[in-house]
């Protein structure tokens, strides 16, 4: 179902007129209210008046994750805190998270876009939505939740974890739509099987999955095991959260970007040059309706391509293909963003030494597992086993506390971690996605 026929199926010409108007308003807004942007514009001799067409957007320099970090926590906010009603955060590349804010209108916009996304994925107001995205600083849980309420569906805010309890709820409450990360979904399927519950006896019709990379193979596996139609959803907290782009269940071939709110570009990550439709590169977004946290040409680090072909569903909004990778070393483990540098900070924080370490990511029983190997150098070593075991526990506990992801810590002998050209290999990702 298309929730907002007016905007979602708008002829391209009309849509582009609205986009330009909104872009100009956003440029005025950030120039007036975000010192970071005013400075950036001035350094590049750009004034808001120079942006006369969508083409002119290319003149403006990119915004990067580093810019957000330099302005931590609230430096990029474009409204006074009085007008901010919600704050979310996601992992940054160092110990500090990336912080985003929302005004009441931003929350409403987000809920509307998320409601559109749920509708595109097959949900209606009569549905019961089992929302297994995590609730908290992570935008997944609350983003889907507000969208479900906006749509008028019934939402079960079950969040992540307690898998057996989730299966019982699925059996007893009869939800018809599942929202979760794809890997957790496959884990749910396995636990259900162990408990003697068949998804074929449950009432699920559609599933809306995202927050981590997945593949066509995983889609087929989920659809077959859960007896549902599965669609891909895309979002990132910096731009808004889930609901930036959604696959329609009719085509299941690429995700429609809500272009009346976000301008997508694909660039060559090396040169920054804008690439034509169809070519693969780094996805860049400009928000054009956000009040509290507008971003101009934000480099997502996600690699994909754009497809302007008309879609059978009737939506006129451009489609992005599945995200195929990252331009940085970010890992997504059970939906949580993890940078190797964060693990390094945790290790440094414990002994003030920089140990050699390696992250090994696996997928066991459909769940991502993270093992952190730490080489035991003299400064970490003790003749007492309990001291070494406490070290393992402490590293594991701090990773959980700072990053929100469970890790098994394993102490290894010096030089046990492979070096390539003298440099330790920091990440081994054994997942077959």
């Amino acid at each position, binding site marked *: 179902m298309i929730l907002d026929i007016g905007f979602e199926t708008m002829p391209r010409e009309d849509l582009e007129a609205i986009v330009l108007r909104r872009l100009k308003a956003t440029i005025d807004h950030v120039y007036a209210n975000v010192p970071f942007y005013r400075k950036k514009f001035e350094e590049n001799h750009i004034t808001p008046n120079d942006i006369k067409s969508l083409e002119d957007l290319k003149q403006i320099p990119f915004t990067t994750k580093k810019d957000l970090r330099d302005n931590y926590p609230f430096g990029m906010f474009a409204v006074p805190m009085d007008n901010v009603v919600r704050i979310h955060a996601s992992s940054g590349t160092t110990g500090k998270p990336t912080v985003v804010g929302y005004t009441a209108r931003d929350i409403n916009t987000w809920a509307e876009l998320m409601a559109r996304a749920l509708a595109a994925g097959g949900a209606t107001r009569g549905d019961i939505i089992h929302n297994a995205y995590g609730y908290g600083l992570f935008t997944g849980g609350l983003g889907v939740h507000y969208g479900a309420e906006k749509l008028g569906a019934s939402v079960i805010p079950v969040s992540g974890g307690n898998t057996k309890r989730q299966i019982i709820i699925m059996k007893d409450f009869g939800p018809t739509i599942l929202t979760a990360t794809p890997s957790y979904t496959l884990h749910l399927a396995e636990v259900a099987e162990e408990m003697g519950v068949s998804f074929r006896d449950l009432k699920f019709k559609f599933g809306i999955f995202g927050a981590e990379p997945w593949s066509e193979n995983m889609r087929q596996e989920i659809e077959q095991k859960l007896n549902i139609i599965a669609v891909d959803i895309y979002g990132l907290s910096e731009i808004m959260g889930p609901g930036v782009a959604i696959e329609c269940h009719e085509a299941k071939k690429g995700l429609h970007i809500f272009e009346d709110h976000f301008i997508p570009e694909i660039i060559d990550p090396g040169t920054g040059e804008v690439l034509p439709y169809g070519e693969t590169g780094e996805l860049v977004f400009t928000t054009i309706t956000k009040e509290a946290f507008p971003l101009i040409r934000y480099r997502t680090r996600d690699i994909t391509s754009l497809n302007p072909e008309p879609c059978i569903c009737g939506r006129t909004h451009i489609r992005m293909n599945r995200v195929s990778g990252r331009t940085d070393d970010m890992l997504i483990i059970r939906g949580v963003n993890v940078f190797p540098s964060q693990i390094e900070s945790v290790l440094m924080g414990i002994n003030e030494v920089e140990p050699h370490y390696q992250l090994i990511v696996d997928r066991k029983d459909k769940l991502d597992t993270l093992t952190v190997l730490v080489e035991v150098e003299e400064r970490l070593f003790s003749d007492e086993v309990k001291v*070494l075991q406490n070290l393992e526990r402490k590293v594991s506990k701090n990773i959980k506390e700072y990053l929100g992801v469970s890790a098994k810590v394993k102490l290894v002998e*010096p*030089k046990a971690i492979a070096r390539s050209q003298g440099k330790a290999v920091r990440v081994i990702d054994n997942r077959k996605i």
Partner: protein
Amino acid sequence: MRAEQISVFLENKAGRLAEVAAILAEADVNIRALALADTSDFGVLRLITNDNQKAMQALKNRGFTVSKTDVVAVEVEDKPGGLNRILDILHQAEINVEYMYAFVQHNGKNAVMIFRIDAIDEAIKLLQKNNITVIEGSQVYTM
């Protein structure tokens, strides 16, 4: 009256102990006493040799993590209750034994045990006061 022990970090996998033994053999070092504490992932090998300095250097050269720790070597009567008497004395004084292991050789009629104790000087004084023989380090290495 302290004796010196070296400890080696080992991953819990096949061949690691053999490797240590081979390195020590190559360095012409004789093992006098040893104990291995292990978990599912790793182990800590504690050794007393006839030349700890040489043993340590040889192991370090081959990339092992090695440390030195002071321990106490104590003569224990080789009869029922011999060990109990010593542990009792330490227990009464609330001195905690982190771990202990036995020496390969006897000293005359008595067995020799190695104790790893945090309050090491206090423990030595206490044992000597109770007429228990604490063996000098230099003597331990060449026993």
